[in-house]
């Protein structure tokens, strides 16, 4: 089981409490679609994804980004058992959505950059370490049911 220090717990809670779930998830997902364009193949029915401006302004991307971030919220609220909390989500992504698990890391990286840009200097090395550990656990839990 994953061990969390007090600092890590409070850092994760603090970061997520300051995120606007209506906006941050959409931003991270949009960045993913822009920076790693092959990920667009998962969103064939999202309409216009032809360029960065279109992606950043696409309402379906924004809405789905919010869904994804709410999924992460489940991990935030269940830090001591993310693996169990994500069992169904993992099955969903592997069996139904057929998402290549490499993509979880790409989205995690984009979310890290969104948070870093928002927090500026407050995103210190220690905060970065805690946040990346949390995302690594979330990603690992999402991958669990693939094999």
């Amino acid at each position, binding site marked *: 089981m994953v061990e969390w220090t007090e600092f890590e717990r409070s850092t994760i809670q603090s970061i997520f409490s300051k995120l606007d779930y209506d906006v941050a998830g959409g931003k991270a997902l949009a960045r993913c679609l822009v*920076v790693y364009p092959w990920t667009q193949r998962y969103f064939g029915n999202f309409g216009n994804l032809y360029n960065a401006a279109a992606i950043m302004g696409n309402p379906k991307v924004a809405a789905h980004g919010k869904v994804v971030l709410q999924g992460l919220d489940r991990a935030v609220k269940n830090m001591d058992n993310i693996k169990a909390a994500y069992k169904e989500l993992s099955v969903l992504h592997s069996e139904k959505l057929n998402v290549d698990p490499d993509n979880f890391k790409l989205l995690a990286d984009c979310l890290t950059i969104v948070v870093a840009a928002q927090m500026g200097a407050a*995103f210190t090395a220690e905060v970065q370490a805690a946040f990346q550990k949390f995302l690594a656990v979330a990603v690992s839990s999402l991958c669990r049911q693939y094999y």
Partner: protein
Amino acid sequence: MVEWSDNERAIIADVWSKIDVGEIGPQTLARVLIVYPWTRRYFGAFGELSSVAVVLANRKVATHGRVVLNALDVAVRDLDNIKSAYSHLSSLHRYQLHVDPANFRLLADCLTIVIATKFGAAFSSDVQSTWHKFMAVVIAALGSRYF
């Protein structure tokens, strides 16, 4: 050969012009040593690296961070020939320093995060895309003599 659009060239030059190597270099290397602690094995001669505070205060880390980031200047000034420009550096890392090339990506990730914290919203998805491409080319060039 890598193709760079005029826009990409302008973005890279612009980002680089706003980076203070003396400030960003130390921060970047410190983050690598903090967030990915196994990298400390490369710096046995740097003295104390056992805690976050100590890494951040370590002068050898700061000096070496500047050395590493200064070397990026070579790539910025010669975007069309990064592979040949880094040929010697690649051999150095492979044959003398014995650095696992996976670490180049860790450093690039930390540099990207530091830039995001400094630039905030100005680190748009277009800028992130371009910078990510530049980092990927640098990483590939540094790894080119390994196999």
